[in-house]
């Protein structure tokens, strides 16, 4: 769980401060930017994501490499499961899952 997931900020949430819509391999989820408050990224910026929070800004090339690394480690699927799980509060009760 220490391996971070690269994502591209595509939008900012207009209703909530510091929440961004981030795209990871075609999947879009809300991610909290609060840990980058000192140097707030915006749409078009790449970030490393960990448990639903952006933890650092990275370059596009670095994002590419990180995805490749996850694939090589065999962690890409669990990383995507994690991303898909954001906002669903539990993966095991689809009745409750609210794709946001």
């Amino acid at each position, binding site marked *: *769980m*220490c*391996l*971070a997931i690269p994502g591209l900020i595509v939008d900012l949430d207009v209703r909530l401060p510091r929440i961004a819509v981030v795209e990871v391999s075609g999947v879009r989820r809300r991610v*909290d930017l*609060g*840990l*980058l*408050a*000192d140097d707030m990224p915006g749409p078009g910026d790449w970030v*490393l994501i*960990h*448990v*639903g*929070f952006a*933890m*650092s800004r*990275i*370059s596009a090339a*670095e994002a590419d*490499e990180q995805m*490749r*690394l996850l694939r*090589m*480690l*065999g*962690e890409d699927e*669990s990383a995507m*499961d*994690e*991303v898909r*799980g*954001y*906002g*669903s*509060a*539990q*993966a*095991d*009760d689809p009745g*409750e899952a609210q794709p946001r």
Partner: protein
Amino acid sequence: MRFVDEFRDAATIRRTCEEIRRLADPARHYRLMEVCGGHTHAIYRFGLRDLLPPNIELIHGPGCPVCVLPMGRIDDGLALADRPDVIFTAFGDMMRVPGAHGTPLEHKARGKDVRIVYSPTDALALAQRHPDRHVLFFAIGFETTAPSTALVLQRARAEGVGNFSVFSNHVTIIPAIRAILDSPDMRIDAFIGPGHVSTVIGCRPYEWIARDEGKPVVISGFEPLDMLQSVVMLLHQLREGRAEVENQYKRVVPWDGNRAALTALAEVFELRPFFEWRGLGFISQSALAVRATYGAWDAERRFEVPGVRVTDPRAAQCGEVLKGVLKPHQCRLFGKECTPERPVGALMVSSEGSCAAYHSYEYRKTVAATPA
């Protein structure tokens, strides 16, 4: 050389390996500890052992948060899940970790409301959707993860969510390194420092290791070339008799860390006087408790936590493996009573645990190589 050809820049990897061979004194045995569980996983997955000369030994450190959690804390958390109003939430990594009375998943099978969340934010959202229930978040992780919990607690307070609490098992990496250096049966020459913990704490907190203990530290990225370059940097220091903190992972780790994250940590958490680590025993000032100002959201203040202490099953040698005294396959239970399918200890559960990593890559390779 397994995998080298699928690595990006295989030629650079080969050159770096040659440089390692040139720098390593054949008369000397090197013990390098990779602190982070992510590094442990990568080392096994990429077969980096096979790329290093035999006199460079990689010792797996305590940086897998699930692995260092003593069983009693899991039982404590699950005892809270027994309350009928409670929804127990935790990351997926926790679900198969055994306490003395079973895993969170087994509790779920017994009818307790146990749910996986992928972010602490979602545990808070769950509480907001179920005002009649109490949502408890079983928080684990080093400084990489703890700031996220801190921000969620700030949000819970700001939005006045009364039916949410955190059972904090957050730990800090520096005291664990100190405990390892103080342990008489450990002899480490240098450290490969954790990448993502350091994005939060920066490089300064490691300076005492170089200054007072005379051990080089290189903060490293997770790609094969990153780790090999970190070994080169460590060997240079050892050869020249230097001990410094160097940052190989500059593209992600700022020297001074992440101020916003550190500020949130300091506002929400305080250091516990001591905390028990599996394998390392009680370590002072090594874990984070929720501050009194956030007491209403602290499960340990809100509820009666049993505070059970459970020793690991007698034959299990998780402690010795965690300290790097034994290799995973040297544990009596490894591959027999303890497998990834039926884990006895947490090191066999998490992909960052050295037993699971060893079992997935090295052990299967050995078994495959043994003629039937």
